């Protein structure tokens, strides 16, 4: 999978690349407007991470250019602006997602995963992992042909882990993923723990191997 990171902050871009390259993504960089235009004209990407404020131009124009060329690249806007207007405009022009800075790399990874799955697997969108089978379209789980019923939260957690395989994910990142802005206003993130406990139980009851490990006391890792 090929990604293009259009971001003028080199430190942030390299962090993103370092994290995502572990997920079998190949990352390329564009640090300004003209580089970005140049690259999208030449190549196709599975997913483009687009910062809106770029030296030399507005990220929205890159988005418009992609649309004009009828390119199918998935686009996730990563912006420091976090303004609803930008979000709506970006999604209207054709972005697939919008992520406000600062964000967790694990969250970005989950969004990239989901955008790529949506773009590239329109008909049969099934993620397989040994005995575990996830149908992204119908949001159903099967373990060795046994259907498992998960709550909305448990499903969201499972997908998050799948898209961050072998990564240490802190409880805070999980809480933010589940509750968004609400999570960072609540000091207590124990609700994550009970959802994880239920998810683990449901999976193991259905005969799924124990891939979800607790690490360092409060972190989690989906090991495969």
């Amino acid at each position, binding site marked *: 999978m090929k990604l293009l990171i259009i971001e003028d*902050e080199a*430190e*942030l871009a390299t*962090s*993103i690349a*370092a*994290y995502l390259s*572990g997920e079998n993504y190949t990352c390329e960089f564009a640090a300004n407007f003209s580089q970005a235009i140049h690259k999208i004209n030449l190549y196709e990407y599975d997913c483009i991470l687009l910062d809106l404020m770029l030296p030399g131009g507005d990220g929205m124009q890159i988005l418009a250019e992609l649309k004009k060329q009828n390119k199918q690249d998935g686009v996730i806007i990563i912006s*420091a*602006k*976090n*303004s*609803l207007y930008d979000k709506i405009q970006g999604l209207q022009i054709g972005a697939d997602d919008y992520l*406000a*800075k*600062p*964000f*967790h*790399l*694990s969250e970005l990874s989950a969004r990239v995963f989901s955008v790529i799955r949506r773009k590239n697997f329109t008909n049969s969108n099934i993620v397989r992992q040994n005995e575990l089978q996830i149908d992204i379209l119908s949001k159903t789980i099967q373990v060795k042909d046994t259907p498992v019923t998960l709550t909305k*939260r448990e499903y969201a957690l499972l997908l998050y882990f799948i898209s961050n395989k072998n*990564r*240490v*994910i*802190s409880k*805070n*990142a999980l809480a933010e993923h589940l*509750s968004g*802005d*609400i999570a*960072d*206003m*609540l*000091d*207590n993130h*124990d*609700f994550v723990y*009970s*959802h994880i406990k239920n998810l683990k139980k449901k999976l193991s009851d259905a005969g799924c191997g124990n891939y979800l490990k607790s*690490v*360092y*006391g*409060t*972190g989690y890792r989906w090991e495969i």
Partner: protein
Amino acid sequence: MNRLLDKSLKPLAIYALIVLLLSIPAYYFIVDRIWVSELDKHQYVLRDKIESRLVKLNLPDSTVEQTINIWNKIEPGFVFTAHPTDQVIKDSVYTTMRFDDFLQDREQFRALSTSVRINNKHYRLLIETNMEEADETVTAISLAAIFFFLLLLGGFILLIRRTSAKIWQPFYITLDTLRKFKLNSDQEISFTPSDTQEFNELNDSLSKLLIRNVNVYKQQKEFTENVSHELQTPLAIVQSKLDLLFQHPTLTNDQYNIVESAHTALTRVSRINKNLLLLARIENHQFADHENIDLSILLHNMMEMLSEHLEQKQLTLENILQPDVKIEANSVLLEVLINNLLINAIRHNSIKGRISIELTEHRLRLTNTGSHTLAANKLFKRFSTTSTETPGSGLGLAIIKQICDLYQWKVSYSFINNLHIFTISFKDPITLPAPSS
């Protein structure tokens, strides 16, 4: 506090009063002097006339005595007496007070005691003329003075009201303009020009001062927004580096906990930053668009979203929501408002506590159990409620207040029977002007 016009009247009135008071003795002395000198002149004339007429009569000595006696009896104010000596005694002029038999009162007289020569015989003639007493003169003058003082005062008031009101009119217009001016309302301030130089100078100076203030205010608002903005990227970098550090294969438990602590603090910074940015945006009127929102449904949905957090603290939630309560507002801001209220009620609650939500057409009320009252005067100020026990962003209530101010809703807090009560009173629909039929 005195009004400007009354202030200019006061010294004038006092000055007029002093002048008129001083005029009373002055008038008295003048009147008295004229009076006395006229009387004296008159009395000498009388004396000369009497003497010349008596001499002209050429009466024998015996008849003279008789005539004088009759004169003395008939003519009041004249007393002839035989001269004690043949030598001429000097005339004397004086004022005297004595009891008058005829008027039955003490009266003041001007008297002339002089010598008259008839048939070579000297007689003493005393002429007395009743004159006004000093106190009566003073009273009359004082009354006149008071009358004129009142006339002056009335005139002053009338004139000052008329002319000053006209002169100061531009000042009052400026005052009114200032009173209506609001720093955060984004409206241009303009003063009405006048034909008085000083007022135009005042208006110019005020304009300059206000423009400077507005600019400083705008800069400060922009500063907050810009700073918050600029912070997002470095915060994103730090967060990404911490996320990478988590992945380090040789990370020990202790190191993980250190990173996790740093991470928690970073989350707090991000939250403060986000909230400051939100406040700045509300102040900059960046949430101008609004729609008709069903608050009953919105509340219901948000309570559902928070249900897992309620369970965590074993809180019981009761709600009395009037259905179909519609409200005109920006959907993002309304969600932020309700979110903040609900999360406050959860965060600052005791274990196994209660939360109750009450919604009517006119108000939204959130009640939750708590242990001690909060300082109501500081509650809605930025960073005033942060405590080490519950480290929030310190901006939640400030945001609530800001949103309520924007829509002219009233938010209030009270603490009764160990219950925190937050009430938001929406604009009363009854007070809106009724459509004309």
